[in-house]
């Protein structure tokens, strides 16, 4: 199975820094805390301390599972710049390998939300005319992301073949 998702012949997988895992841990942790805290408060007002404890336990387990999954998710990500295509691989549950020819890239942009900015990472998003594939490189250090964007934009110009 791993052979099927191997890197292309002329470029190794570039892996991403652990900041991506921390980003996801913070997001999922905050979500679990909000849902758990709200649920517990409601159940205590309802007068069901036992159920509140069960609820808190459930959310704690979920948070721990997501914590470990975030690490696996970050390790599953990779990108490789082959001679004429960008290769992406990601996914823990559904493993994916996406091949985007440089000539097919319509728009390449870099985005970073507040938390990403705090962690110093950014997302490079590649848009093609097909809207089905999710083609992003997430969690790159900002400087690398900008360089990658410039490289991809330049190649999409030089390989351009129209629509």
């Amino acid at each position, binding site marked *: 199975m791993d052979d*099927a998702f191997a890197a292309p012949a002329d470029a190794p997988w570039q892996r991403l820094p652990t900041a991506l895992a921390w980003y996801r841990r913070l997001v999922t942790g905050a979500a679990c805390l909000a849902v758990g805290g709200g649920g517990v408060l409601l159940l205590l007002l309802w007068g069901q301390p036992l159920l509140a404890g069960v609820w808190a336990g459930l959310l704690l387990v979920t948070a721990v599972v997501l914590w470990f999954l975030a690490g696996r998710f970050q390790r599953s990500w990779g990108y490789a710049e082959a001679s004429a295509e960008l290769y992406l691989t990601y996914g823990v549950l559904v493993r994916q*390998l996406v091949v985007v020819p440089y000539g097919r890239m319509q728009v390449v942009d870099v985005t970073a939300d507040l938390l990403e900015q705090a962690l110093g990472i950014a997302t490079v998003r590649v848009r093609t*005319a097909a809207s089905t594939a999710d083609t992003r490189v997430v969690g790159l250090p900002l400087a690398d992301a900008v360089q990658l964007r410039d490289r991809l934009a330049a190649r999409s110009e030089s390989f351009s073949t129209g629509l």
Partner: protein
Amino acid sequence: MLPPPHARGGPPPMPPPRPQQVADVTTGVFRAHWLIIPFQVIAVTLVFVALVGPILTQFGFAWVLVLAVAVVFGSLAYALPAWWYGSFGLREDHLVVHSGLLMRSSREIPLSRLQAVDVVQPLLMQVFGLAELRIELAGGDGSAIRLRCLRRKVAERLRVAVLAHAAGLPGRSPEAPEWPFYRLPFLLLLGALTFRVPVLLSFILLLLLVTAFLVFLEPGVLGGAVPLLLGLLRYYWGPLARYTDFYASLSSDGLRLRYGMFQRRMQTVPPGRVQAVRVVEPLLWRALGVARVEATVAGYAGARQGDSTDLLPVAPLGRAYSLVNELFPESEAAMVPLVVNRALLSTAAGTDERLFVSVRGLFCRVTEIVPVERMQTLRLSAGPIARIRGRVTVDVDTPPGPVAARAPAREAVQGRRFLDALVEYGRRARVPSAGTERWATRATMHGESVTKRYEGEESEDLKGDTPER
């Protein structure tokens, strides 16, 4: 007192040139036909009377009349300047469209980007000899240019000029000649549309309900007939009225389709604008040997024209495949070697150097054909269950449309080989500068071959991986 010039040896005066019915459309500024003003005024007034009228009748009929007259003049005061300012014209190979009165907007559209051109005639416009020109650009909804209420001659000539500009020819070039490809007999359309499992079942159910009503005189039974009737209207009467008098022809401008009973349409899809094609054969149609051909054309996405993606509503299978071969020259869709998947019943996929073909469907067979140079992205995916079974799915992504080509549940290593072969073929097929803008300037017409240059990058040593047969 001078004698007239020809008496002095000069040339005789030329008779003043007769004003032509249709001027040269490549220069000058055009507007919609003035009939658009009464159309708009009448429409606004009718809507006003229908919505507000019932409320106003309580105050007396005079009020309705006075306010209706006020609305007529108000809408006239808006429609007249809007018509005057809403102009368009060709400037070199750009179409410049000015529109709006309060929100003035002027768009300049590079015609080399156009994806398709349609001339549409709704019933009301047919009566007055008017037509609407629709120019589809890549970029999804809202990027279509609609020029309403043109004289039919002007619309036709604009279509020719726009296509000529997009092809890189001067706009005054005459319309490209066409040769007939397929005329759909009405009886075949009627028969094929009737001869489908859902339609037949609906008819039978409807008959049963009506007989039940007649026998038991139970009006409640007819409640079940309403959804059936609606379904039949949509899926039986709709296509029947739409594709009456269907005629397809080929020209160097691409594929031309003319059809319609109440709304005449003339579609033109330039060459190379078809991103992918699928041939659909419902269960009962296979017995008749007919199929439907649908295409993904960038710009035709969205529900607004979801069903104008049919290139051939009904056609014999041989005709359907010869159309596919016309659309993707130098390739033979029926000759692509298919690998039958033993894990999943009745699915097969294969590729050669030009086309990716996948077949699926046990009852309604769908053959999806994507030229490798038009693939946007390629995906290999494996869900948790597929990973236990050691299977992967290869997806070939194209712009939004009816076609979704995929090779499901392949063995892992074989699937990867398949993907690598597709990447390789795509790389060879996507020769730079082989875009389809200004197609007439490059000899990519029917029968003439494209020079295939392979622009090698750094790595010339390519493994000739082909999927297992």
